[in-house]
């Protein structure tokens, strides 16, 4: 049937499907880029996990020159201080490890440790610190005295009576990696969506095919929605790989699968529409990749990937709440861990995300429509 003879609704849907199909076929001819758009988000996921592996615990050598019960208790207090990765070794091995950069501190328990404490005399605890940067070094500077206080609270309970009594909201702790991968999944969906849709949109300008699209008897809305649909289908490949890595390889199992899949789709639409907008505006595929990466990384960091954003700097938190990654991380944390990480709660966050998706699709369609109004120059 000729397109002009179709009913408007049928024509709209036909254009959407034709556009989606065209973009999928075009992308499949550029296999190198397609592969890259799948690999880049996974690459980011794995790289940022390396960051989580540092975990804020200092690799520290403990040299016990005294093996008495108090010395052992101090070692135990250090091991339970949540601050050190302890390696018990000799003085010379400790020096070697320090020289190789494999440890950052050496704590030496002197030979007279037990005897001095039994007699109530002072004892010096030598600590050698590789003070590389002040943040990590201060962690060690704080951690050694607190291990000493904890040691006293156990060894001399009548002398050190003030103790911390901890009560946790959740019955079990969630590991840093398990928490962080959820935020990483959101940024992977964002990066994949921006890359895929941005490149698809910019390709039309680079190859000059945008003129034909704009001259075609089709609504720019249908064209843009079709491009978004095509990019969502293509992007789902990359998202599927990310989900497989997170769930089956890293072992973070979602508590609410339905919620997860629904919000993944919503975020894909949002970011693919944003990518289509970027591609329509900058019109060069070469710029899409650095812009997508350059945009995704800071947004990921300010949006509460490491903990609720509202606990951080108030200005940063206010800025974070103006964009979808903040809400994306919140709804994903709920879907994976049943956590609430925003003051609005997952239900409201979900509605806000629907709003973002609608706004992104609308703005990208308007941006494409304006090309027709002004005439296309590339």
């Amino acid at each position, binding site marked *: 049937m000729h397109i002009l003879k179709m009913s408007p609704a049928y024509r709209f849907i036909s254009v959407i499907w034709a556009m989606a199909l065209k973009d999928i076929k075009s992308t499949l001819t550029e296999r*190198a880029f397609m592969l890259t758009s799948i690999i880049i988000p996974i690459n980011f996921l794995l790289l940022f996990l390396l960051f989580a592996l540092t975990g804020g615990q200092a690799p520290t050598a403990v040299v016990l020159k005294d093996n008495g019960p108090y010395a052992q208790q101090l070692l135990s207090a250090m091991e339970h201080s949540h601050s050190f990765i302890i390696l018990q070794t000799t003085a010379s091995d400790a020096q070697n490890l320090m020289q190789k*950069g*494999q440890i950052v501190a050496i704590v030496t328990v002197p030979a007279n440790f037990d005897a001095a404490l039994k007699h109530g005399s002072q004892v010096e605890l030598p600590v050698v610190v590789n003070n590389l940067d002040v943040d990590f070094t201060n962690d060690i500077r704080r951690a050694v005295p607190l291990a000493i206080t904890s040691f006293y609270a156990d060894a001399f309970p009548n002398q050190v009576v003030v103790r911390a009594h901890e009560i946790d909201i959740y019955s079990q702790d969630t590991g840093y990696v398990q928490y962080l991968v959820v935020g990483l999944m959101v940024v992977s969906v964002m990066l994949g969506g921006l890359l895929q849709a941005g490149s698809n949109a910019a390709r039309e300008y680079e190859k000059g095919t945008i003129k034909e699209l704009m001259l075609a008897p089709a609504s720019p809305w249908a064209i843009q929605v079709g491009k978004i649909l095509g990019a969502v289908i293509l992007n789902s490949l990359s998202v599927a790989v990310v989900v497989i890595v997170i769930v089956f390889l890293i072992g973070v199992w979602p508590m609410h699968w339905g919620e997860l899949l629904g919000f993944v789709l919503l975020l894909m639409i949002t970011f693919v529409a944003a990518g289509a907008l970027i591609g329509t505006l900058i019109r060069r595929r070469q710029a899409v990749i650095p*812009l997508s990466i350059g945009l995704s990384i800071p947004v990921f960091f300010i949006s509460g990937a490491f903990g*609720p954003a509202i*606990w951080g700097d108030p200005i940063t938190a206010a800025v974070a709440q103006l964009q979808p990654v903040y809400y994306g991380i919140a709804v994903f944390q709920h879907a994976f*861990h049943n956590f609430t990480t925003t003051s609005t709660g997952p239900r409201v966050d979900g509605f806000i995300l629907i709003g973002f998706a609608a706004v992104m699709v609308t703005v990208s369609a308007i941006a494409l429509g304006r090309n027709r109004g002004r005439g296309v120059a590339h």
Partner: protein
Amino acid sequence: MTRMMISSNSSIIRVLAIVRKDIGVWLRQPTSIAATVLPAIAFMVILYFGAQAVGRNPVALVVLDSGPHAQELVNILSHSDAFKITMMTTSPEKAEEALKQLKVAAVITIPNNFDAAYNSQKPDPVTIHINNLNLDFTNDLRRSLPAAITVFYADKTSSNGKTSPIQIHVKETDLRTQDIDLLRFELVPNLVLLLTTAGIVNAGLATAREWEDSTIKELLLAPISKMSLIVGKLLSGWLTTLLIAAVVLLVGAVSGYLRPEGPIYWISTLVIVLLIALASAGLGVAIGAAARRFQRVTAIGIPLSIDLFFLSGGITVAAFLPTWLQTIAHFVPTFYGTHALQTAIFYSSTEGLALDLSVLAGTSLVAGTLGVLSLRRSMLA
């Protein structure tokens, strides 16, 4: 002799013509410049926000005892650099509500019998109710209250006039002459990221452009040797990278954030920068000649630079990584570049410089050779 001199002079002129053309094109391509600096800027933004947020979670403090010891502990907690007290109250319900609404990450409660228990040397627990969403900041909070108790005892002269019961005193020895703050420390890996991105992307795009714009045919038909063309490409990639490095080093030196002390450390810094830029440009030419398309160059070059950045320490400190990851880092050339620059700029030291320079020189040689071979192969094809 004269003929040889004329020949070598004309080769230099040809190489310089290629260099001038590539730099001219680069300067007219804002997208290339953006592609070069965007990842480094993105990581700087991250580092800035990261440095602001390190370990400062909001906490509510419930004070149910007004005795002197309780007030002393309140004072210590209020000045803690591990968290910030955003709410101080005598109402436990109000604090718990704030915890429920995510306004605070934890509630610390000093009980109403704190002073009495302390004076009678009976168990005196201070409660911390934590929103333990993840281990990283939960452990920060877990450490923070015992740390405050440590300060409480360290400052203490007990009521009977005795000094603190804690008789163990820490004697700290620092390996480095000065502490470097997080933001400044991370500027160096970020500079290395900028150099690798600039080298790989700029040299890669300059090489791929000849195929993308089909100008490679004209170059191959021109009366110049293939070697002049290859050297020109390498040199232009190297120079554009050094141009960016010069701007960063100048700003760093003027601001004092990246200022080596003394001529020896300036020289070692410059040599390291020259080597990293050369290795990156060589790699860029290799990728550009093999990929022959802009999009492929950016798709390969930028993630590769970011991979090298992360594996050489990146946004953390390599010494804090697990051993297996440190072992991998030792196979990454940028690890040596970062180490050499940090020791020269921050610690005025040449520790490990010979190894660092050897690895970087070797990498430059390998990358340069790779660039030459890849470009030759593509030109022949």
